[in-house]
């Protein structure tokens, strides 16, 4: 079939999740015509009237990418043969309008000032020797203060609900959160009281599940969260959880300057070696190929999509871990979970089926460089939290490690424990390493015959030490929560792609100030092709001890500003 060549447009965006949606809204508001390409289907809140279905959405991954068409391959080290992730496990790639921005929990944390200058600040305080061999941390090429106004934009757009003040050891906010914090449950209070008694600084988790009705600066009105307990892996039938479909995409659509094309799977960025000329995409229903010429190409896919499209299109220089040259695929990082303490109550039950994706309390006393690492064998840390996201009975089988996994004892214990266990856990930062990266798999291909992305990653000593230390802190807090007993997990083993851990994959198109080792500058403009902008968690040179969406959202607003500037004057923006 001949590719259908379309008339040129000013901007084409690949992927209609948070990044694509924000950029589409901002550019169309500025009068710029935008085409948005989304490989999945369209969505609205009406699709979620029957969303309270754990089997369909949580266990069968209704909202996720169809792995029969495309997956990733994985190995722990270069010595192994990478094999395809045949079914879902460790992380969940979103699909369809709104992308992973639909199935998230809504936990909202600005990364710490330390994160953006991690190399400089680590060396300043501890010296160069603190950084282990092959750990490739680097400054981001942008500071917290520079990014601060863009965080504000995201918060006002999505109506983030949070406390009036945050502790001093997180980044300063020039404007308070858009709405008051979420409600406080009895279990949250137990966590907060125990942490406060230890001298820590807990606060209610900033939330994209609205604490009250909210009208944003674009005139979008949304209703308050109902605490129904179906956020992560689900779409919100109320539109209370901020997602691109109920916030930014309607603004773009109302402008009259936005054309959304669903079922449009981009397979290549077309370029002449210096600049992009457009993109090629295939209609996933009809198989029709189209070429969409554009002045500006924006990559706004998930981490794996952004990296894979650059590699498939031979745009930018692929990273080579042997020589440490090149940039595309570098600094893949993840999230270091595993430090946790379970808090068992005998004489008390909690309403744990009730909740919201971003309902909970957390503290940063052991996050970033908020504590002295001089005598510790790791850098960075974790946000320590108690969350009440709504427990569901298929996926939550609370039995202690020494209980059989089936039979009467298993039944008895899981029923008894169903509403009697609270969890205190750390969400640990993940540092990049020379041998953790993304490239194209030499063997496995997608349904179109194109190579899959290959992921090489493992947990290392840094991660094990971090988990061990953070676990002790979770235990200290847990022991102050008045429970019958606590059990701690303080070990993390080889990275295993089977159990779900976190959909916080980062890196591969990292930002920075060095054109040789980073992919984009601090406007998320590609060093090797000035009319290509790439935005997402793929820009993170490492992953912080937080959920990534706040920082992704801020970077998306920064990108939109960069594209506007570029359309005005051209050339490199830095």
């Amino acid at each position, binding site marked *: 079939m001949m590719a259908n060549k379309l008339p040129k447009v000013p901007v084409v965006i690949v992927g209609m999740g948070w990044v694509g949606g924000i950029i589409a809204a901002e550019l169309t508001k500025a009068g710029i015509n935008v085409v948005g390409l989304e490989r999945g289907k369209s969505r609205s809140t009406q699709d979620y009237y029957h969303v*309270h279905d754990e089997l369909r959405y949580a266990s069968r991954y209704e909202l996720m990418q169809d*792995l029969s068409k495309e997956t990733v391959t994985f190995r722990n080290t270069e010595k192994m043969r990478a094999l395809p992730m045949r079914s879902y496990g460790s992380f969940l790639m979103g699909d369809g309008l709104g992308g992973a921005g639909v199935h998230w929990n809504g936990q909202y944390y600005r990364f710490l000032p330390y994160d953006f200058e991690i190399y400089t600040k680590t060396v300043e305080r501890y010296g160069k020797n603190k950084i282990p061999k092959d750990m490739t941390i680097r400054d981001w090429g942008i500071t917290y203060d520079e990014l601060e106004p863009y965080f504000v934009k995201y918060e006002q757009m999505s109506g983030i609900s949070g406390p009036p003040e945050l502790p001093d050891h997180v980044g300063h906010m020039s404007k308070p959160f858009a709405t008051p914090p979420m409600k406080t449950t009895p279990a949250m209070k137990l966590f907060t009281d125990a942490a406060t008694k230890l001298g820590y600084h807990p606060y209610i988790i900033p939330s994209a599940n609205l604490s009250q009705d909210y009208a944003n600066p674009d005139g979008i009105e949304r209703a308050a969260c109902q605490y129904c307990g179906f956020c992560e892996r689900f779409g919100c039938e109320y*539109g209370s959880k901020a997602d691109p479909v109920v916030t930014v995409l309607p603004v773009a659509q109302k402008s009259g300057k936005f054309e959304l094309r669903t079922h449009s799977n981009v397979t290549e960025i077309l370029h002449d070696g210096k600049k992009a000329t457009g993109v090629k995409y295939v209609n996933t229903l009809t198989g029709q190929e189209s070429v969409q010429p554009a002045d500006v190409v924006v990559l706004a896919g998930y981490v794996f999509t952004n990296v894979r499209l650059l590699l498939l299109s031979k745009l930018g220089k692929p990273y080579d871990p042997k020589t440490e040259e090149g940039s595309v695929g570098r600094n893949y990082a993840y999230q270091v979970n595993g430090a946790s303490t379970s808090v068992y109550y005998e004489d008390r039950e909690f309403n744990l089926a009730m909740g919201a994706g971003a309902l909970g309390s957390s503290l940063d006393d052991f996050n970033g460089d908020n504590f002295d690492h001089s005598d510790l064998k790791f850098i960075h840390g974790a946000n320590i939290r108690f969350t009440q996201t709504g427990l569901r009975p298929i996926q939550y089988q609370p039995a202690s490690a020494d209980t059989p996994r*089936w039979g009467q004892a298993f039944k008895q214990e899981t029923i008894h424990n169903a*509403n009697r266990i609270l969890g205190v856990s750390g969400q640990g930062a993940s540092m990049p390493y020379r041998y953790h990266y993304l490239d194209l798999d030499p063997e496995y291909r997608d349904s179109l015959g194109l190579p899959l992305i290959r992921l090489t990653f493992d947990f290392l000593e840094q991660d094990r030490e971090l988990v061990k230390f953070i676990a002790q802190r979770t235990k200290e807090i847990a022991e102050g929560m008045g429970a019958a007993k606590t059990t701690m997990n303080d070990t993390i083993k080889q990275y295993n792609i089977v159990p779900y851990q976190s959909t916080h994959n980062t890196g591969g198109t990292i930002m920075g100030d060095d054109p040789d080792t980073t992919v984009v500058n601090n406007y998320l403009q590609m060093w090797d092709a000035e009319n290509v902008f790439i935005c997402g968690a793929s820009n993170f040179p490492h992953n912080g001890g937080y959920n990534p969406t706040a920082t992704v959202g801020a970077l998306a607003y920064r990108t939109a500003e960069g594209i506007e500037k570029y359309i005005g004057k051209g050339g490199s923006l830095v």
Partner: protein
Amino acid sequence: MTKQQSRQPKDESRRRFLKYSGAAIGGAVVGGVIGGLVGRNLNKAGKNEAAPPESTESPAVQRDQDYNQALMFFSQEQFQTAEAAAERIYPQDNNGPGAKALGVAFFIDHQMAGAYGFNAREYMSPPFYKAEASQGYQLTFKRRELLALGLDALNEYSQQKHAKKFPKLTPEEQDAVLTAFEKDEVDLKDVPASAFFAMFRNLAIEGVYADPLYGGNRNMGGWRMRNYPGNQMSYTNEIEKEEFIKMEPLSLHDHLQMG
């Protein structure tokens, strides 16, 4: 502990809720719940009565026939084997019904007949290599193939060991057979016993706790044992409460009838 009636579709809080979100959402941009809840004219009569009593009888003798309880995939022998094995995974006890009374074997049968049984949304393209444990499932079997093979193998192994098929064994013998599969202690050609067992065990748990629309969790009996309220629309008024609140659960079937 307080006992609270769950909100039924027509009561005051439901109306308040709809009115409230209708006002808030405004309709222009987001849509919201209003449209979707407008009456589907199903049989509303008797809907607000108390939940049906738990039954431990065979579903076949109940007066209200459930025509959904029939086989889409299993042979009758596979079904009986699955029913017996699921009952050992999740047995009836003084907490309440076990897998058999909850219809779990029907759930598994129906799952195998559809997309999940065919691994339709999973990457099943060759080549297949032996994997490290960290790389996950890399067998060529689709779920329905592995499940049918495993159930037949349960009978074959039971026959070898006890000269009876699996459903005819005592519960203790059945547990020993299942444990042998779980620990890969059986030597049956081409049967990845522990992979079969792990899959079967997960399917049985899903059948206990998935919404009853899928054929298991009969009359929401699985949910009731755990005091899981199922598909409620809102906990805004309860989320801050100190005491544990027991509710009569609601299913997606109930949801379809909210008008």
